[in-house]
């Protein structure tokens, strides 16, 4: 393998290059990698920021929202002066100011059945930091059909969850639907808007998502496949629950019933 770094890159990535597990070879892998992050919010902020700092060469960001004051308690990519600005634009500015090596591809749009495959297809890894079930199911199914690794995290109140689904190796990886076959009925699970969230929980879980992505790119360590990490911020406890592949899973089971993308209703659109 051959690589050429500028003086600035040698300094910027020196702490990576020194690591025997990374080196110049690993840093080149990072610069060549393409990671897509869904949601530039509580999870996407820290994951994008660290992936950018690490020199992941292409970062895709999907978000249709604009920066609001209520985001700033946790969404560290944004700032007070950017309230009202599209989140993808604000995220792009922060990332480009941190590391000019990163090419940001901004998708200022809502993800749905007809654009999800196109958005995901050119990326190597997908990080889900979305805030609703219909999007989570759509991303999961699209990643499954396209064979892309999906690093999924969720946060609420004082709790965070994390797992990696490696759809490059579907035989050995459970999928999101093995865990949750269908979205819960609208209104059953509160959103963070309703239930609240300690801001740092997003920081912790989003940073762990970035860690999973870096390991997948570098091919080092062990990805969190078949395991669900649960973080309890009030007691500072991490627990791991085993996830098994469900033979009856409607997506990846022996007799799958889901063979194309399914779009569920957005809970917020439902009147109740």
């Amino acid at each position: 393998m051959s690589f050429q770094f500028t003086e600035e890159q040698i300094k910027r990535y020196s702490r990576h290059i020194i690591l025997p597990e990374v080196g110049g070879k690993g840093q080149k892998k990072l610069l060549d990698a393409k990671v897509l992050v869904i949601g530039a919010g509580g999870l996407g902020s820290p994951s994008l920021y660290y992936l950018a700092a690490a020199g992941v060469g292409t970062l895709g960001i999907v978000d249709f929202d604009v920066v609001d004051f209520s985001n700033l308690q946790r969404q560290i990519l944004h700032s007070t002066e950017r309230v009202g600005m599209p989140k993808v634009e604000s995220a792009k500015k922060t990332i480009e100011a941190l590391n000019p090596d990163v090419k940001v591809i901004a998708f200022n749009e809502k993800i749905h059945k007809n654009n999800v495959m196109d958005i995901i297809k050119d990326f190597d890894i997908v990080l889900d930091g979305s805030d609703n079930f219909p999007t989570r199911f759509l991303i999961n199914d699209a990643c499954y059909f396209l064979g892309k690794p999906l690093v999924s995290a969720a946060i609420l109140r004082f709790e965070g969850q994390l797992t990696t689904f490696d759809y490059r190796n579907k035989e050995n990886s459970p999928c999101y639907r093995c865990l949750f076959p269908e979205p819960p009925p609208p209104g059953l699970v509160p959103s963070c808007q309703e239930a609240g969230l300690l801001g740092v929980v997003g920081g912790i879980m989003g940073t762990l998502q970035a860690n999973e992505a870096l390991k997948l790119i570098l091919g080092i360590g062990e990805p969190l496949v078949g395991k669900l990490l649960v973080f309890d911020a009030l007691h500072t406890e991490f627990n791991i629950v085993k996830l098994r592949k469900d033979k009856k899973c409607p997506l990846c089971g022996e007799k799958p019933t889901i063979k194309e993308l399914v779009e569920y209703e957005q809970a917020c659109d439902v009147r109740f």
Partner: protein
Amino acid sequence: MEKTQINRELDLRGEVCPFTFVKSKLIIEQMEPGETLRVLLDYEPSVENVPKSMREEGQEVLDVKKIGENLWEVIVRKVK
């Protein structure tokens, strides 16, 4: 004593830790096993640190020598 054949040379005068090691490592990574690299250093702490880090990475340090007033050479053979 037979003179070691040198495949690559790297003049790191003016460089300090950890960049002396970082730059040496980047060259070593792109060499073939068995090939040798000669590094010139004028920053004394690097004379200890570069060989130490190279050994930690599994490379073989063939020679560390003072060759002038505030000038040292380190010769490393790539193992892996």
